[in-house]
């Protein structure tokens, strides 16, 4: 137990929203609350997605550099997209976009 197959995770539309946010803000670090604010995803959905992507190596995270005792508040955890995350996002978009276009053209 405890070992995880590093298979590519399934990406839901919500997951795609999170990934695109990080891809846009590339190299910028966001806390969970930032992601919540920018995507509108609730905590119960957001954190499993962050965990899944981090486990897949698409995101990495670190603690805020603050002594929680001195600051009198808990440290935030910042997330950032990795190179592999950017590539995977690009692949996903390349895969999905033609299908979306085809679907949209039929609809219109």
């Amino acid at each position, binding site marked *: 137990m405890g070992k995880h197959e590093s298979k590519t995770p399934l990406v839901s539309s919500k997951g795609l929203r999170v990934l695109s946010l990080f891809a846009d803000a590339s190299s910028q670090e966001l806390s*969970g609350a930032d992601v919540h604010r920018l995507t509108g995803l609730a905590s119960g*959905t957001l954190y*499993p997605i962050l965990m899944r992507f981090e486990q897949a190596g698409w995101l990495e995270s670190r603690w805020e550099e603050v002594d*929680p005792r001195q600051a009198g508040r*808990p440290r935030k955890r910042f997330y950032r997209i990795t190179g592999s995350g950017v590539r995977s996002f690009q692949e996903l978009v390349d895969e999905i976009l033609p299908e979306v276009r085809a679907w949209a053209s039929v609809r219109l």
Partner: protein
Amino acid sequence: MGFGEIVAGLILGIIGGMVANEIGDWSNQISRWFLWLAVKHLSHDLQDRYEEEWLAYLQETPGRLTRVMQAAGLIWGAIRIEHERRMPHTLPISAAAVRLFDLLMAMLMIYFCAPIMLIAALALLIESGGKEPIFFKQVRVGRDGKHFYFFKFRTVVIQPGQGQVGYEITKVGRVIRQFRVDELPNLYNVLRGDMSFVGPYPERPSMADVLEKKIEGFRERYRVRPGIISLAAVNLHTFYATPDLEIYARERLRYELEGIKNFGIVFTIKIILRAFVVILFQHTKRNN
């Protein structure tokens, strides 16, 4: 505006302020409680990280009501995170559904069986003249291989001297066992989250050590909570007579792994119904 109205307005304002403060404080308490519940659903190696991370998350969330809702959402989030780590190929909703079912059923059963448990406890107390404990607790191996105390009514005589359990069943014990009332304290284990209604049999640590070494895949059982109703007991009642514990454990493991693969609310209910049929219509021997 009359003087009376001004006074009334002031008083109402003060009371309103007090109530608002109280609610504000309460919303914090509730959020903290939800957060604690959420973190408790995570496995040990994740608890510290997410406790701090989520506390910071909640502090960053503006608005009392939003904060409480987000905190409640974290419970769902924690269940999903845990489930994903354990069983990436099944739906997280099934883990939540099983836990919810366990909680509700345990509460209902405790409510309805309280009189029976009270009578059993009194009978045991009277039988031993208050010299021996009513409950019997034993260390068992649970989810993730974590140890927990397994509670039952004591149905055997405790051997004098060392607190070892003997195998002489008392008179009251026999009646209690016949109607399976001795297993009711397990409901407390379900409430605590140590156990589920349906799951693999919780082994004693010494036995688990042996079986882990001898049987490949034995640790797979630790993916889920152990159950009051063993996944295998329903299928395997005829095997109880097998004197070779290892063969028995191997045979049992097959059913247990099958059950873990089908893990979910539908399977849980199916096993419970089947267990009722077995208990009501067939004679089963018990191995514990």
